[in-house]
């Protein structure tokens, strides 16, 4: 996500402190995700591709992730287009949501010349830190429009904790 959006998100967070929902943006640094090609990759070789920036072994994508919170639950939203919902591996581990999966490179025909190849393919892993403890066994996930949404009930329902910090 672009820096302007990160700043906008932070500004709105302070505005919405009194609202039921709070939006915690977990930074651009976490969103940039490495995609590793599968062992028997059907990705084209560099000489089949006219895109000078194409490197099959090093593709990156912005796997945008947001965490929303209210009294009862956390909702994690992860952008991961072009997947089959059965290809996601979702776990709650040590206070974080760990999502891994594989975006397969599949094309109807292999004829033709690739002019541009920017989308990321292969296996990825994204860790989203969770601000509070959750009941992992009661989590529910759905996948729509290329966005994975995971709802996690809080272990101890309650308003999001806000700590005021004063500058000395």
């Amino acid at each position: 996500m672009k820096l302007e959006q990160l700043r906008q998100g932070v500004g709105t967070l302070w505005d919405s402190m009194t609202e039921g929902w709070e939006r915690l943006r977990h930074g651009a640094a976490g969103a940039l995700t490495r995609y590793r090609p599968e062992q028997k990759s059907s990705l084209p070789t560099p000489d089949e591709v006219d895109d000078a920036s194409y490197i099959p072994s090093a593709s990156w994508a912005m796997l945008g992730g947001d965490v929303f919170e209210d009294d009862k639950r956390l909702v994690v939203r992860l952008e991961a287009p072009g997947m089959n919902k059965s290809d996601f591996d979702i776990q709650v581990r040590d206070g974080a949501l760990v999502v891994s999966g594989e975006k397969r490179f599949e094309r109807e025909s292999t004829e033709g010349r690739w002019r541009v190849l920017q989308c990321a393919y292969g296996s990825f892993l994204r860790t989203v830190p969770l601000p509070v403890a959750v009941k992992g066994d009661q989590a529910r996930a759905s996948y729509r429009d290329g966005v994975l949404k995971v709802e996690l009930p809080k272990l101890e329902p309650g308003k999001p904790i806000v700590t005021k910090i004063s500058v000395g």
Partner: protein
Amino acid sequence: MNTRAVTETKANTSPSREEPALLPPVDVIEDATGITLYADLPGVPKDRLNVRVEGETLLIDADLVLALPQDMQASHAEVRHTHYRRAFTLSRELDPGQVSAELSQGVLRLRIPKAEHAQPRRIAVQVA
């Protein structure tokens, strides 16, 4: 000679949209009968996708919608909506009237065939 059927171009920003738009990553493959373009547009439902051809320009415009369990207040709209935008110049050998588009799990697939006159054609050779 530039043999590319499709090249990146700068999208004209319409006056009503001031916020910066996200540039979606794309894959473009060109074969003998046309081009196929794939774009990653996560969070875009079908009714917020706008694909159009203006002259020689192909424009992809889409709104990303945050589908939260409960509706947030309208005052947070500027953060809720993010816009995707990308434009391409199509070469004259392509037929923009025959564009087909599909959107599935955030991936847009566009197929633009080459015009009749540019399709590969076998010419029967008569033996005199």
